[in-house]
């Protein structure tokens, strides 16, 4: 009897659990850490549909007769239960355990400098360019707020690079300091979801002292230059000030 009830309720429980996890992810804002904006509304629609399906299922169906459940699977109730648990437990566990962004371990596995050729970078759009121009026009000494990816995009455009070379900029990102190289400030770029996120970084020099930890969110203000090494141009920031920063609403940058 209990087996029949469990077997009957399992689909509704699993679908409701997925819907709950999806809705919680949206309401809590965690979805910003998982999916690019384009895909977020799909999750909301899916959550609503799953709730509807759960209700419809309970309304339209009833526990199967003992004979049906007995003949349905050669491997028995335990295997059936296992199937439903595989659908239930990993998604709940992942929703609890998933951190805000990737750690430096994954950063290394995904190549911190891999995005040097990934153009066009997201974020350096007409709005951000107009914003930067307004700030420079009003006060050339004021720090221009930019993203890590903006500077990489600029480094591939000689005209824009020239306009920014030597400017004071302000940017927020995650700190990384490996032995044998300059400290870096990086962000992950997310095209569809966090699983495809790739790091993009700028090198830091000058006043970077402060005992900063890897993967700590920092706000850096400094002068940007675009030195060339063996023909490869990469942005470099001579840091004037550096301070801890709040994690941005969008920890990943998206197109």
């Amino acid at each position: 009897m209990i087996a029949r009830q469990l077997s009957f309720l399992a689909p509704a429980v699993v679908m409701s659990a997925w819907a709950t996890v999806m809705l919680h992810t949206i309401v809590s804002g965690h979805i910003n850490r998982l999916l690019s904006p384009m895909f977020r509304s799909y999750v909301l629609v899916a959550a609503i549909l799953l709730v509807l399906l759960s209700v419809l299922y309970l309304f339209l169906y009833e526990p199967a007769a003992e004979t049906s459940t007995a003949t349905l699977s050669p491997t028995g109730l335990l295997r059936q239960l296992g199937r439903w648990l595989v659908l239930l437990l990993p998604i709940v566990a992942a929703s609890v355990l998933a951190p805000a962004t990737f750690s430096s371990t994954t950063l290394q596995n995904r190549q911190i400098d891999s995005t040097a050729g990934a153009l066009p970078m997201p974020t350096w759009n007409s709005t951000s360019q107009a914003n930067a121009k307004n700030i420079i026009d009003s006060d050339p000494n004021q720090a221009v707020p930019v993203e890590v990816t903006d500077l990489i995009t600029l480094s591939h455009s000689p005209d824009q690079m020239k306009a920014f070379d030597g400017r004071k900029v302000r940017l927020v990102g995650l700190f990384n300091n490996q032995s044998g190289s300059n400290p870096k400030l990086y962000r992950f770029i997310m095209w569809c979801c966090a699983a495809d996120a790739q790091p993009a970084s700028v090198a830091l020099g000058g006043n970077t002292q402060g005992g900063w930890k890897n993967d700590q969110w920092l706000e850096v203000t400094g002068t940007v230059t675009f030195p060339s090494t063996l023909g490869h141009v990469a942005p470099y920031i001579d840091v004037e000030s550096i301070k801890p920063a709040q994690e941005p609403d969008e920890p990943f940058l998206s197109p």
Partner: protein
Amino acid sequence: MTVFFADFDLPSTPVSTGIAWPDVALSFFAIVLEGAPFLLLGAIISGLVDVFLPANTIRNWLPKSKTQGVFAAMGAGLIFPLCECGAMPIVQRLIRKGVTPAVATTYMLAAPALNPLAMFSTYLAFRNQDPWLMIALRFGFSFLVLLFLGFWLVRLRPEEMLRAETITGSPRPAQEMSPNPGLVLAPRPGLSLGGVQQFTGAVIRDFTGVLLFLVIGAAAAALFSTGFNRNLLAPIGHDIFWGPLAGILLAQLLCLCSTTDAFIIAAFVPFSVPAKIAFLVAGPLIDLKLYWLYRSAFKPKFVHGLWIRALAATFLLTLLYSLHP
């Protein structure tokens, strides 16, 4: 031979700098959250097909010849593009509705591979790196590999390809033919909602049936996409022989959607054009995640055969391109 087996500095690059399990959880969560809505969409379309499209109608639409069917399936992949996750329940439904498994499977492979959105994203990703060449190579090589696979598929009998519960026209009870034999649907008596019941049952059965394989595939994809050190492939990515292999291997491990993969591989500066094309052709056809998704409908032996043939054909084509002067 010295060209093929250059002196790479592989030992200094570890396969992984370690695995951060919370990062694996983040990757896994992102993959299933991205895939589940599309899987649900596929299940809903599958349910609509089940209720509103009689098997005879579908069969009448399709060419009688299997060879023509393969071309029709490839054309359908172009006209009705679907992502990998969304295609799976629809293909299973089409097979149960009597569409030749070879034709349905060709469509399943063609929908993400020849997807116009994938071509558009390729243009965007490579717009500073000869985008039209990349689109031509991606589309052309995908077409040729699909043709090769399609003509292999038409020679197979359905029972060689499909799991017992997926085979068309089985005389066994409908319950056993479902992709989710763990789900028992007993309609509540006295409700005059036959169509709604059939639709709801089909959607739930298809969604939960394929979702299981998406979860398993996403776990494998999350593990490798976060734990595998991509620097390992950098030294060989430009090699004539090893470059295409590196591209194929990376595609298998990263398990990206066909509309995203171009943005990722465009950033791999150490990879040659053939290596990047190998990545873009092989990935939408099969990877670690898709392997598990395909297992929801097909026999393991068939999936292994498909895997080997898809990757071998991709490798040969990209190697030939790599060798051209």
